[in-house]
């Protein structure tokens, strides 16, 4: 597991992300500050259109803020060139999406191996196999996504995110496409893995039950923090 150099893995100040201009301008994020400690489990909640997905995309270096400062593991990522950002996404961040985003023409093992292919040197297949075993899919290694259930697909996606051994795991509605039983299993798995690997977990959800599992719940409304509660 990558070592966290600083106690604060995320330090955001005055993050602003606006779409469009004039009267049609949408303030997705407006002067947002956020600080997350290493190993913390933070849930970001809010209504649809509150800006939580935009925040997650900026956190994941998939989108750039219009202004503000964002230090990720001590690096000012907003000023990094695209090539460096790709490296950060590959080495520091892990993603779990609501709709899994698995490659349909690759089996489970190859899907998990995918992030490792963008690293220099030989791809460690054994690491991907271990991760699949860890998410209890060792008997589904050669299965393609179409041959897996929704819960199994999300477990493959989690394995893909964790095989990189990221410092920050970002989950966008990870249980949104699952029934409650599978949803609970996925949340249990995420919680267990976070503790096991001491990974920082940021989870975006509109489900308060899911959010209640977090150390800290932060509520976004119209692109601004409206509430924060800790356990």
């Amino acid at each position, binding site marked *: 597991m990558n070592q966290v150099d600083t106690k604060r893995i995320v330090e955001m100040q005055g993050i602003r992300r606006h779409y469009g201009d004039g009267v049609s301008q949408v303030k997705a994020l407006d002067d947002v500050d956020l600080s997350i400690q290493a190993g913390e489990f933070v849930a970001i909640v809010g209504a649809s259109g509150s800006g939580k*997905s935009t925040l997650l*995309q900026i956190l*994941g270096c*998939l*989108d750039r803020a219009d202004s503000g400062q964002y230090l990720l593991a001590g690096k000012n990522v907003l000023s990094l060139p*695209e*090539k460096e950002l*790709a*490296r950060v*996404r*590959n*080495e520091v961040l892990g*993603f779990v*999406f*609501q*709709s*899994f*985003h*698995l*490659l*349909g*023409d*690759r089996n489970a093992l190859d899907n998990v191996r*995918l*992030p490792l*292919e*963008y*690293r220099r040197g030989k*791809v460690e297949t054994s690491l991907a196999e271990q991760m699949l075993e860890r998410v209890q899919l060792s008997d589904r290694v050669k299965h393609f*996504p179409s041959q897996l259930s929704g819960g199994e*697909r999300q477990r493959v996606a989690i394995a*893909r995110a964790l095989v*990189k051994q990221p410092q920050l795991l970002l989950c966008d509605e990870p249980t949104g*496409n699952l029934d409650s039983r599978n949803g609970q299993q996925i949340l249990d798995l995420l919680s267990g893995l976070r503790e096991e690997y001491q990974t920082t977990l940021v989870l975006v959800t509109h489900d308060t039950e899911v959010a209640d599992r977090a150390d800290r719940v932060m509520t976004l409304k119209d692109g601004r923090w409206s509430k924060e509660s800790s356990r």
Partner: protein
Amino acid sequence: MSLLKDGMIRIQRSPMRSILVTLTFALGFSAVVAIVGTIEGGRRAIGNDLEALGSDLLALVNPVELGTVSLGRVTEGSPVTSQDIPSIKTALGSEVETISPLLVNLGLTTYGEISWRHTMVATTPGFLSVLRSGMLAGRFLEESDRWPDDREGIVPVAIDEALALKFFTSAEYAMGRRFRSIRSGIPFTCEIIGVVGDPLLLRQHLSSFDATSRARSIPARRLEFLNLYMPWREGIDQPTVTILDVDTVDKVDGVKSRLDQWVEDNDKGVYLHVQKQWTAIILQMVDRFSGLGHFIWVLGLTIVLILTATISLLAIDESMEEVALRRAEGARVSQVITPVFLEAGMLSLLALFPGYWVGLSIIEWGVKPVLGWEAWLPLEMILGVSSALVVTAMLSAVLPAYRVATLDPAPVLCGRRDI
């Protein structure tokens, strides 16, 4: 290596698209091969024909008199006569192998039920050196071959291969045959003593497509090789054309300047034709034609480029989510672009052989029977057009690659469906 694998996966993922792109590349390449093969084959065939006509020849062409009008006169003075030949020989020395006077008339020949108007050439035995293709059967005229003293006598003649095939179906069968001809209103009987090989290979297939015929100079048109060669009558015949066969092409310019001087000194009103210069002009014209052909195949490849780029763009649109995911997982722009180029490159390589085969088949079954020449694709030309196809394929991948490179993964990953 994994990028190569990604390229192959892209090919396998959409077999129909891959087949369509490969087919487009293959058909485009076959068109290129057919065009280039035809052009180069045609250039070579025309070059061979021109070579066969002889590039070391000079011709003194007497003007054609039509009443009081004289056509073809360049210098002022009298025409060249057979009495001038010894003087020309003296002026030019040993650099000229033979000087052959030619009296060219249009005659009519009848054999069986076939009658045909064709040229009749009275000349001396030395003219054989001008006939590069030599004798197909029998022999050419010799000093001992003469016109008979009486009208019922037999005239020994040699005929061109094309004429032999027209009347007798084969050169061997023509040997010794007799037929009736009329020249300048006087009928006579001929006996074939030899058949001259046809140097114009193009005409063997289809004379109307003989690319050199319409472009031929006046003396060359008189050397159409559809001739009946008969003995020269000393003191009676006067040359229409006097052909000079120079030792080598290198000596042509020197001989020409001395011949110009002779014409001036002897006040001759003739046109001096230099086969070498004319050949160069024709080859220049052929090169221009070739240039047009090359432009057409470049245009063809451009169409291939647009077609395949369109197909590939659609494919990229279909794989936007995958690309976005790869970018999210840490792929650099170059790592998502490279498989797009590799895919195009691999498909173009797949298309090379079938395209080449189809192109050659088009020439073999479509072009050769009509135009009559063999395809000719020198190695450097094959390498050139193959490279052009691969470059076209790569260029066709530029737009899709640009689309991938400029993709913003965030909004794409908001899509709520599996890839």
